[in-house]
């Protein structure tokens, strides 16, 4: 069996596994629903996600430990992940293959030629890792406050040495490079002693934007599956909507179609994970290379090379994705996967320039503090940024969110949506709650989003904690915001129309929405009596619409009578009103006296102590476009800044 066949089987298998895991990410117990399927496994295998979260949180969280398998195997074998596992890569591989297979050899060689632009992905890697690392570098400078961290500093120092050694190889002018890099890090740490670095540095996890696994999960969950499922409703019982999905789809399609121009476009030029694996694979024990330096320069190997690593000449090890195509293309049988270096020579280091590296590094450090100047994580909080229940406080949340879209996929009511620019670029594609879209608000007994989040940006809370029961009674239920009644739009408040949909649907017990009774005289509702008996009263002319007051919400009172208690109207014709027979008038209203028709309104009020911000009221509100009751993140449990009330008042009494 050719190794190529095995590689293709492996790619197909992982692609199928990925597809299946995305399909089953639907809450339920059937075999084709969530159950215990390890739906985050491919994300967990991704070492870029592991490294990114280590830099922002200084911990390696739970399942992300799987990344070590990839790391160890990559160090030993090379970029096997890119060629054999990555579903996004397999997709590119396939489309690229389709794009080139009927082209003449010359064109194929040109398409798979090494481009200098392939070093862009390394700059992107440096940039994204620095964006994540800012906080840890500042933490490093604060080391002497905390005794345990002496160990941390020793480790960081040795890491710095390793990094320096890597740069050793990465640039031409070694000494200068070491000097400048050490100077930068030292300067930064030194600054930390004199300045409060917390203010100057800030970090968040942005790797999810370009990380291929996060990207492909996002694209599959938010674009491909909903589109495919649109008619059938097999994968989900409801049509799923995602705001801003068009952009995710465009990016995905662009990445896929670019393969028709240059195969594995994304892998070669953009993928930061590929860059990381390329760096990790430098010391690989087995590598592709020529057994003898006797090449006829037929370029057949180059034509089929997926990584554009120039196997015909000096092979660029960091670009090789172990597709094994060159091995079978070479008619002379020269190319092997073996422990010795290639006989034609190797280039192990990616072709990155010191200048580019520094640019990426410095801009990475600067990005988040600059973005934070907009105040969006503090006082300039955007009202649309309502985070799912169990989300960590915002700054820590942004340190952990992978923008993978798993929470959006699993949410049974489809209210978790990718943010657009509401939270600024830093919060792009992070999960926010949109209660208008979807089928209801946040379900009371659902804790799915926290359970599925691979990096615990949304904590895996228990149901007791969400509802504020048992050991969590003191703190009360988790609140994501508070509902506010817009009295200018609410039907009973502004339009004399009875409605208590929000109060009826409020799921808390006691209800957070309560009503107060109010009677308003309807427009044109003061009428003069022409004839009457104990149950009916007739007016001059035909002022009324038949049946208009028959809904049970209308009452009439006699203005000047002794018995001026309101009577519920049972029915009316064009000129007569009939009251309910359970309580007739003692004496019929006299002719010429005035009768007032009133509508019984129950005006909704929200009690902030009880409101959890679940948004069911906003979802049900019959004022459909801009809802008359809207939830905004005031009083959310995870934040002190947005608290409405004193701490005690937030607890259930």
């Amino acid at each position, binding site marked *: 069996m050719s*190794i190529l066949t095995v590689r293709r089987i492996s790619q197909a298998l992982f692609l199928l596994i990925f597809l299946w895991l995305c399909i089953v990410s639907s809450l339920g117990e059937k*075999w084709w629903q969530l159950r215990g399927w390890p739906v985050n496994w491919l994300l967990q295998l991704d070492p870029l996600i592991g490294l990114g979260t280590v830099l922002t949180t200084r911990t390696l969280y739970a399942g992300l430990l799987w990344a070590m398998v990839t790391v160890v195997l990559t160090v030993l074998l090379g970029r096997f992940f890119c060629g054999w596992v990555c579903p996004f890569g397999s997709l590119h591989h396939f489309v690229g293959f389709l794009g080139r297979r009927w082209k003449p050899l010359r064109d194929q060689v040109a398409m798979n030629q090494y481009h200098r632009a392939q070093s862009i992905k390394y700059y992107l890697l440096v940039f994204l890792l620095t964006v994540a690392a800012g906080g840890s570098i500042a933490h490093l400078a604060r080391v002497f406050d905390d005794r345990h961290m002496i160990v941390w500093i020793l480790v960081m120092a040795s890491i710095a040495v390793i990094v320096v050694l890597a740069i050793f190889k990465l640039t031409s002018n070694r000494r200068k490079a070491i000097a400048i890099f050490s100077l930068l890090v030292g300067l930064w740490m030194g600054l930390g002693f004199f300045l409060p670095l917390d203010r100057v540095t800030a970090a968040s996890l942005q790797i999810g934007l370009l990380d291929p696994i996060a990207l492909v999960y996002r694209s599959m969950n938010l674009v491909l599956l909903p589109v495919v499922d649109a008619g059938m409703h097999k994968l989900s019982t409801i049509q799923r909507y995602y705001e801003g999905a068009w952009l995710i789809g465009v990016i995905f399609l662009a990445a896929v179609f670019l393969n028709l121009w240059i195969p594995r476009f994304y892998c070669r030029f953009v993928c930061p994970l590929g860059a990381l694996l390329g760096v990790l694979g430098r010391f690989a024990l087995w590598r592709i290379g020529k057994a003898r330096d006797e090449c006829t320069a037929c370029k057949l190997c180059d034509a089929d090379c997926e990584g554009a690593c120039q196997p015909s000449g000096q092979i660029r090890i960091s670009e090789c994705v172990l597709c094994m195509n060159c091995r079978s293309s070479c008619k002379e049988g020269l190319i092997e996967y073996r422990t010795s270096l290639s006989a034609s020579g190797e280039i192990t280091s990616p072709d990155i320039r010191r200048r580019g590296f520094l640019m990426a590094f410095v801009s990475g450090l600067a990005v988040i503090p600059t973005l934070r100047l907009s105040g969006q994580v503090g006082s300039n909080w955007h009202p649309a940024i309502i985070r799912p229940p169990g989300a960590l406080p915002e700054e820590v949340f942004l340190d952990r969110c992978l923008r993978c879209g798993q929470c959006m996929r699993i949410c049974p009511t489809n209210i978790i949506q990718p943010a657009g620019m509401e939270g600024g670029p830093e919060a792009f594609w992070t999960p926010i709650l949109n209660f208008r879209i979807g089928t209801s608000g946040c379900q009371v007994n659902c*804790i799915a989003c926290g359970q599925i989040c691979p990096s615990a940006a949304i904590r895996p809370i228990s149901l007791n904690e969400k509802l504020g029961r048992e050991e969590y009674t003191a703190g009360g239920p988790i609140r994501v915001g508070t509902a506010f009644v817009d009295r200018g739009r609410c039907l009973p408040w502004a339009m004399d129309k009875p409605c208590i949909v929000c109060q009826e649907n409020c799921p808390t017990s006691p209800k957070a929405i309560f009503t107060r009774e109010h009677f308003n005289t309807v427009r044109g509702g003061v009428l003069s009596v022409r004839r009457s008996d104990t149950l009916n009263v007739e007016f001059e002319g035909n002022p009324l619409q038949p049946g208009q007051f028959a809904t049970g919400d209308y009452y009439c009172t006699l203005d000047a009578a002794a018995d001026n208690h309101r009577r519920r109207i049972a029915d009316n014709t064009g000129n007569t009103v009939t009251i309910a027979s359970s309580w007739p008038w003692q004496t019929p209203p006299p002719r010429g006296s005035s009768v007032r028709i009133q509508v019984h309104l129950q005006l909704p009020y929200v009690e902030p102590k009880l409101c959890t911000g679940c948004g069911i009221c906003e979802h049900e509100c019959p004022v459909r476009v801009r809802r008359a009751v809207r939830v905004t993140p005031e009083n959310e449990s995870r934040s002190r800044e947005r608290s409405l009330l004193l701490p005690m008042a937030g607890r259930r009494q």
Partner: protein
Amino acid sequence: MASQPTKRETSIGFGILLVLAGIVIGIFIKQFHYNRAMVEGVLEGDTSAIPTTGLSGELLVEVAEGMVPLNPPEIFGPENLSDKIDGKAELYLSAGFLRLLCQRFAEASDSNSWMEGFVYDMGTLRRAFAVYSVQRRADAEKIPGMEFAYRTENALFFVHGKYYVEVIAAVMTEEIAEAMRSFAHNFIGKTEVQGGRIEELALFPPEGLDEEGITLLISDAFGFDRFDNVFIANYAVENVQLMAFLSMRENPSAASELAAAYHGFLMANGGVDVKSDVKIPGAKLVKILDTFELIFSQGKFLAGVHEAQDRGLAEKLAMTLIQKLSGAGT
């Protein structure tokens, strides 16, 4: 082209395929282990539904047939009960009150002869009995044919299933009394309730017992916050008034534990242990504030005599009580 795959290549290939198969199997096995609670919680129905109590506004009008309503039916819930009955609401709320429906009716012939009917939905027979028995008036007159009911000069009080009903008249005439009786009769006819019995009532020994005077204290009996569901009954033993109490607990150990706790409560409030000759194992006799308190547990029942003047008579009552309880099946 490397012509045929070498043996080495093939075996490595198979090795890799084996690993892949292992991955598939691993994933398949993993899917059996999951947190049921997370999935079930969402799928299982509408937990937010608040149960309705089945009292409709039109009910009383039907029940008071022949009479003229003087106001629309009023419905009160726990949050606004005090708007109607002010401080008394506390009693009902602590007993698990759900809904109150009330309306005033006058006689067709005379609008000054009117009455008001109050229907309290207490949720269960026991709770209705509790609020009924605690408010029993001194001048109560038994109504033949009804189990938990009494009348006074201008009012009628009874329990029907989970409902506690009061009918209170503004005047004291024969006609209005007749109207109240017919109101009660119609109410019972028009409302379906679950059957049920209050077992503890039969557990009090009948000699000297004031049968109409058994009261259920739903909570905080005798000032002790752990004393809930306590029945008290008045006895006349050798012409001396005594009060026995009894409470059914979950199991024998819960009963003896509560007995010990109540004993501790009495001691903490100035009680003094007194040696008792009563032949009840584990019984405690406490002298507190010039009266005697006898506490014992028998099976799953906690019982005793409360605030007795005479210890001998208290012990005697306790003996009859425990004999009845032993026979009751512990």
